[in-house]
Each structure stands twice: as structure tokens, then as C-alpha cells.
């Protein structure tokens, strides 16, 4: 689309948004960082779905991944460490016309923001939540994260971390009213894109954990998995993440998993033979809190005035 100006278009013709329309500031992530691939996948999704930039909101907390909104040309909210989800729920509450995306990291979501993560899953308000999980605190320079493997060394645990990590998938599957829990990897663009597209189409809170490389502090963390795709377990199902045959062929280790089967999803989340990617669980009919929060958004001023006068009547002497 280089050189093509779009401002000749009359407003009566629906505007076609190009990939460039979603390009914000130049990404300042390290080279080789997995976040770049996620950004590209999201911009492609916006373009393919033709999401009007002014109707699209990216909310984040603090951390490397939370710089995400600055790099997309749309409305963005780069807020506080751990607090992306309450803000995103507030944005969503009275604005069903907006497309809400949340970018969060393993420290942001699974440590300082844990309470909000759990409750946001339960609220099940429509949005796409991307947990960019690199198993480390990068922005603050290499501290242990709640998803760091036991024994991994960092500036806060030079002798190796002491405890087993949180399993974000298992934790999410344990929360009442969970409605879409998926996992993918930053280094497989096709699977990443397909997962995000399915998340976007999901009528509710879509939680996607993305295993994300940090070449700076966790160099080689996912290398063996990248070099040997048999270490990955591809979950397949007609109701799951759809990928085409060429992508499927990359994974010799596959398993059909019905995403309505919660017990099996939990068993797979703890799987010792390969890292599962695909859709663990989906429930399109889970209660949506945003069905409540949108109530009354079209209330007229006259109705409001009448309601108020009725209230004052109650207290009148």
C-alpha cells in the first residue's frame, strides 16, 4: 500500500483499513523479543476484521508487554502495574461498541494483578486478554517471575528460584465462569494468529497465554521446543483453534481435545508429555457480567429526571 493516500475516499463509502492504519509508534522491544510477533499478529487481526481504529482500545499494565498499546494506532490505556483488567472492564462496561484488547505479562497478571485476573475471568466480559509469558521480569532487569521454572536463576534468586511456578492455564481453568482458555507460542505465526482470531470471535472473556521468548534474560528458554516441535502437543478439535493442514503437519504430537470437556482440559494443563497449544476450554454460554453493566445505557434524560423526582418524592416531608 506504499504511497497510496486514503483521504480521497468519500465518507459515504466504508473505509478499508490497511495494515499501516494500525501502526503506532516504533516498537522499542529488544530485537528477537517475542512481543514483536504478537504485535504483528494483532495488527493483522485488526486489518482482517476491519476493526475501526477509533473503536478499538488496547489496555495494558506495566512491564515489557504492557508497552503494547503504544505500538498500535488505536485508543490505548497504558496504566498501572497489575491493573490492566479493572480498567479494561470499566472501558467495556458501558461501551459494547468497542473492541477491547488487553496486553499483560506474567508479573503483571499472575503476581501483582492476580486478584483482578481471577475476578476478570469470572466477570466474563467480552475482551481478548493476551498474557505474554516470558517467565521473567524484563523491564526491571531480570527478577524471578511467578512463572519462572524452579531453580532458574535471576537477580533476586541468584541461587535459583525456590518454588514451582504458577501454572496460569491450570489456575484459569479453576475459576468459576471461565469461558475461553487457550495457549499458543510467539514463534508460530499461523497458530498465534488463529488463536487470537478465535479469541476475538469468542462471545466473552478470551484468555490467551502466549509463551514468549525473552532473548535478553531468558535466552534459549524455549529453544529446544522450537527446534523440536514434538515437544509441543497440538490440541485439535472442530470447536478448537482451526489451523490449516500445513501448520498441522509441523506438529507430529497431536491430540484431539473437545474444548467443552473441562476435566480433560485440566488434565492436559498438567500434561508432562509436551507443552499443549490450542484451546483448552470454551463455554459460549457462560454468564456475561457485561450483560448487566450495559443495562440502561440508552436511558433518556427525561427518564432519568423522572426517576430522580420519584426518589425525591420518597424523601419529601
Amino acid at each position, binding site marked *: 500500500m506504499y504511497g497510496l493516500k486514503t483521504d480521497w475516499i468519500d465518507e459515504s463509502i466504508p473505509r478499508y483499513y490497511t495494515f499501516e492504519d494500525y501502526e*503506532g*509508534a516504533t516498537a522499542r522491544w529488544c530485537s528477537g523479543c517475542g512481543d514483536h510477533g504478537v504485535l504483528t499478529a494483532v495488527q493483522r487481526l485488526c486489518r482482517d476484521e476491519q476493526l*475501526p*481504529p*477509533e*473503536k*478499538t*482500545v*488496547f*489496555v495494558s499494565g506495566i512491564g515489557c508487554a504492557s508497552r503494547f*498499546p*503504544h505500538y498500535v*494506532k*488505536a*485508543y*490505548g*490505556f*497504558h*496504566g*498501572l502495574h497489575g*491493573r490492566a*483488567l*479493572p*480498567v*479494561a*472492564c*470499566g*472501558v*467495556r*462496561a*458501558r*461501551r459494547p*461498541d*468497542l473492541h477491547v484488547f488487553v496486553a499483560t505479562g506474567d508479573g503483571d497478571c499472575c503476581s501483582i494483578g492476580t*486478584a*483482578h485476573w*481471577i*475476578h476478570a475471568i469470572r466477570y466474563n466480559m467480552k475482551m481478548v486478554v493476551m498474557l505474554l509469558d516470558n517467565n521473567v521480569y524484563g523491564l526491571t532487569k531480570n527478577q524471578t517471575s511467578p512463572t519462572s521454572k524452579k531453580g532458574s536463576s535471576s537477580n533476586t534468586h541468584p541461587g535459583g528460584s525456590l518454588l514451582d511456578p504458577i501454572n496460569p492455564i491450570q489456575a484459569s481453568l479453576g475459576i468459576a465462569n471461565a469461558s475461553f482458555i487457550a495457549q499458543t507460542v510467539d514463534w508460530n505465526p499461523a497458530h498465534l494468529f488463529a488463536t487470537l482470531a478465535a479469541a476475538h470471535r469468542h462471545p466473552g472473556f478470551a484468555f490467551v497465554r502466549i509463551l514468549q521468548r525473552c532473548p535478553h534474560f531468558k535466552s534459549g528458554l524455549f529453544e529446544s521446543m522450537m527446534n523440536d516441535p514434538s515437544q509441543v502437543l497440538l490440541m485439535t478439535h472442530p470447536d478448537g483453534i482451526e489451523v490449516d493442514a500445513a501448520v498441522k503437519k509441523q506438529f507430529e504430537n497431536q491430540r484431539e481435545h473437545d474444548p467443552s470437556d473441562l476435566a480433560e482440559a485440566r488434565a492436559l494443563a498438567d500434561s508432562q508429555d509436551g507443552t499443549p497449544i490450542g484451546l483448552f476450554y470454551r463455554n459460549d454460554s457462560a454468564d456475561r457480567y457485561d450483560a*448487566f*453493566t450495559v*443495562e*440502561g*445505557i*440508552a*436511558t433518556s*434524560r427525561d*427518564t*432519568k*429526571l423522572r*426517576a*430522580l*423526582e*420519584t*426518589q*425525591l418524592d*420518597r*424523601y*419529601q*416531608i
Partner: protein
Amino acid sequence: MFRSSSARTAADSAANAPIPDSGEVPALSVPEQIVEIVSDSGEGAQTAGQIFGTVCAKMGNGLWTVEIIPAEIEPPARSRAGASGIRIRFGTKPVASMGDQADLVVAFNEQVLYSRIDQGALRPGTLLLIDDKWSASDDPKTREAYQKALEDFHIAGYIVREIPIHAETHELTDNPQRGKNMWVVGLLCALYSRDLDLAKREVQLLFQRKRKGEDVIALNHKLLDAGHAWAVEHIDARFEVPSETHSEPMVVMNGNAAIALGAMAAGIEVCSMYPITPATSASHYLAADFHHAGGIVHQAEDEIAAVGFAIGASFAGKTALTITSGPGMALKSEFLGLSVMAEVPLVVVDVQRGGPATGLPTKVEQGDLLSSVFGQPGDAPKVVMAPSSHEECFHFMVTARKLAESFRTPVFVLSDANLATAQACLPRPNVSEEWLSPPIDQSPWKEGAPAYGWDPETGISRRPIPGQPGGAFVLTGLAHDEYSHIAYESSINQRAMNMRSRKFAALQTALKPPEIYGEEEGDLLVVGWGSTRGAIEEAVDRIRRDGHRVGSVCLRFLSPLEPGLDEIFRRYRRVMTVEINYSDDVADLGRAGERRYSQLAWLLRATTLVDVDCWSRVPGQPLPPQMIEEALRSRLEGAESCTD
């Protein structure tokens, strides 16, 4: 040591009158009365007091009620710490504080009265009507405690009358514990010549709201009749508090209800909260009725999420509110800083209670002033307002919303537990349609215009909201320039801080100097803020009657401060604040320079460079006018003898 008043004399003489005999008893006219109903928790004393107070207000009296709340939900029965109840102060003139000692107290047991004595709520001559049930208790210890208490009360000079509250109520219901309160309302209506039909209507409305059946209403009406009839037959004292006809329609409500209705009138759509005493009831009112006006109450998972949700809704162009108390303010602090930094309009109600930490959860304090003004890291200027009456609780919500949007800022409204739970009369607000207008300038956003196009004079800028083409920007809590781009250059932060600060200088130029109550110049100026206004003005009135030249001001804006304060202060020989928060008394200290002042005094000393003195107390209850009066008198004496 107690001031004499006609009310007091009347109550004393009536109480001393012989009891039986029936027939028409002439009513003694008194200008005001303070009545308390005290009980164990869960015996409905507060409901009874609210009904009686509303009846008084409906008949044209000024009204102020104070809830007496134990710290626990179900404290042990007949315990001093478990005293639960209500004070009803009503008078011919408008009433704006809880007043001093009670004229009459109805007690469901004798033990709870000890806590009222401890609180200084009684005086020699106070008439105590105590349930005689305990004199016939099966438990000898209870009988003994009862007799001992009656002796103590007699020695202390209270006038004690035993009345058969439990026994009479038991005639009508198997569960007298749940009916005593209505019987007492009937009794009070007889004593104070109140219209029993008005009480019946209130009872009906109350139980209809609670979705109770006709049988419940009928039983409670019978209890009202019975209490009334018993009093007519057995008590030959009658009082009349003459009323003045209100010149405009009036409403009766507590401060939290006024805040809730004010929020609705302000066009707020989202109230995001987490339960915390004493703020929660404001959200209860909204939860019950907000949806009729198109609003929602979001009970968040914690205080932090509550404010985050509100900020998210506001960012998306909706008017949002969060309601909390001190500990919640502490938790929300980081988000409040973000709201300042990123200029997100937000209304924050802080119904103050005793602090720090968990403090006194159900009791009043004005302890959040400095943490509100200065409580965020870095420079975080915002608007801080404090209503001093129920009327202001309502209208300040409308003002707060307008200021929040006009200045792109959080606005803190500091109420307190006293306003929150006190019922009072206020003129029915004339709701304006204009208050409900949508928050956002709906005209198209000019492509490329900055998200913070700060006006160099005022720092004010227009904000884009999601949905507006061309306005897309990334809000950030990082230091940023007018395009919301992260400040990588050193000059940007200085300028942006300057622009955010300038807004409050601009707001201050739009404010008037505060009005002075009492003398415009003279010996002493008393400066207060918030719910203490009524009591301070009563104290000032009493002192002025003795010829002292005393005035008072009540500050509604604490940030920015109302203009002209230093000029006003210089017209008085002494200036002092009166507040419900902690300060050192000078006498306790070796050197005056080590003194820790009360919160408004700190603020005024710093901003005016006037040697502002203070007197403050943290008794966990509103300051009675008499306590303030004594404090002011001692300052005036100190000024005269120059020993202070």
C-alpha cells in the same frame, strides 16, 4: 457546669410531676429537645428514631439525628460496649448538629446507659425511661445489676422512671424484642404531641419497602397505638416543640442518601465500589434505585479494582464515581495519582472514619484531609471539597462532576461518618436537566490535534474519547507531552507538571472568598471544614451572646483553597481551627515548636503564613457545641491574659 435552658427546666419539672391520672394534660412549649433511644444491637432503636425524627420533621421541626453504633454486628446483650441506638435532636429552628446532653432517654436495658454516660451524653436532670423488665429477671445477677444501676443513676442526678416496655409489647406480640421499638415511637408521639397517623404512614412505607405483608404493618400499627395509649394513661407530661412552616418543599434523609441522590442528579452512570463502613450505605441507596436512572453499581473485587473500573469507564466517556472511606483511599492511591497524571475525570467520595489503619470504622473523624491533598507520590494536585451539610452533600456531587470534566481531574468529596448517618431536613433540590448532560464535547476531533492541548493560561484541555475518529491516543501514567508521547526529553516533565498545576490556580480564580459567620473582625476567628460547621456556629452564637467578638468560616474547598484567607485572617487577633482529628495540645509539650497541629491548621499555616492555632479532638463522635464553646472560651481567656 451545664448551661440552663428553658428546654431543660421544662423537662425536669415535667419529669418530677406525679405520674398516674389521665385526662387532657397541657403541653409545655420548649424550643428544642434531644431524645435518645438506646438498646442492645438489633432491637430496632435506630429505625424507631428515624421514624420519630421524620414525623417531627414532617410537622415542621428542624431535625438532626445521630446513630449510636457498636463496633460489632452482634455484641453481647446488656453490655456497655454494645450500646446501639439513636439520638434525635429536633427544634423550632433548623438544627445543624447533634447538640449537647440529652433531655430524655428511652433505654431498653440499664447497662447500655453507662456507655452514654461515658460519652458525656447525659446531664443531671436528664429523664431516663428504662424498661422495668430486668427488675423481674430470673437471673439474680441481672436483678442486682439493674438495681445497682438505678442507684448509680439516681446518685448522678438523672431522673429515673421505670416503664413496662417489654411487658406491654408482649401483650401484642410473642417476639417483643422486635416490637419494642414501635411501642416506644407511640409513647414518644404521646409525650411530644406528635401526630400518630404520620408515624403510621412512615411505618407503612418502611415495611412496604422491605416487602413485608399487611399483617406486619397492622401489628406495628397496633404497637404504635399501644405505646401511645399507655403514655396517655400513665404519663402526665406533655411537651410541644412549636414548628415553623417550611417556605419550600423539604426532604429528610441522611448524608449518604444525599450523596447517592446527588450522584444520580449529577448524571453519573457508573458507581464502582467495594464495601467499607461508613461509606457503603451510599452505594446501597444506588444499588436499589440507580437502574431507574440508567446507572449501575459495580461491586469490585477490591478497592483498587473499584477505582480502576471507574477510571476505565471515564476514559471511555462515561461519568464515573467511586465511594470509599480512609483505608480504601489508601488502597486507591496509585490509581488516584494516575487519574491526576493522565487527567481522567473522576469523582471520589471519601466518607471519613477514624484512622489510621482500621481505626474507628463506625465513628467520625476528619482525618483524611492532608492525605487527600498530598497523598500521592510526586506532585498530584486535584480538587478536594468538603460538604458541611446534607444539602451540600447533594449539590457538591453535581459540582464535583462538572469540575472533574471541566478540569480533567479527580475531585475528592470528603464527607464523614457524622453526615453519612445523620438524618436532617433540607430543601428539596430543584433538579436541572442540564446537570444530566453527557460529559463529552461531541463535536468531531480534529485529526492530529493533541490529546492534551493544554491552554497555556489555564492548563485546561479537551479530551478525546474512544469512538472519536482522529482522536486515538495512548493514555499513559508515564510522564508525557501534549500528544501523550512518553517524555524522553528533560523539559517535557517540567512543562507538563506546570500545566497540570495551572488548572487549580485557574479554578481558584473562579472561587469566592468564604462567607464569615458572626463578627467580620474581632478577637477570634474559628476556621472549620465539613460536618463540624453546625456545632461551631452554635458555639460561636453562645460566645457572641456574652459580648465576645468572634466569627467563623467553613471552608468548602480545601484544594485549591478558597481565595482571600490571609486577608480575612488578619482582621482577627487570633485564628484557630476546630477539627475532629489529632493535634498536640500546647500544654502537653515542652516547646511550642514541636507541636503537631490539626490537619487544616497545617494547611493554613503553610499557605497563609499566619500563626493559625488549633483545637481538635478525636472522641469518635461529633463534637458537641458545648465542648467547642469551652475550647473557644479558654482561647479567648488565654488571649486576654497573654499566658498562652
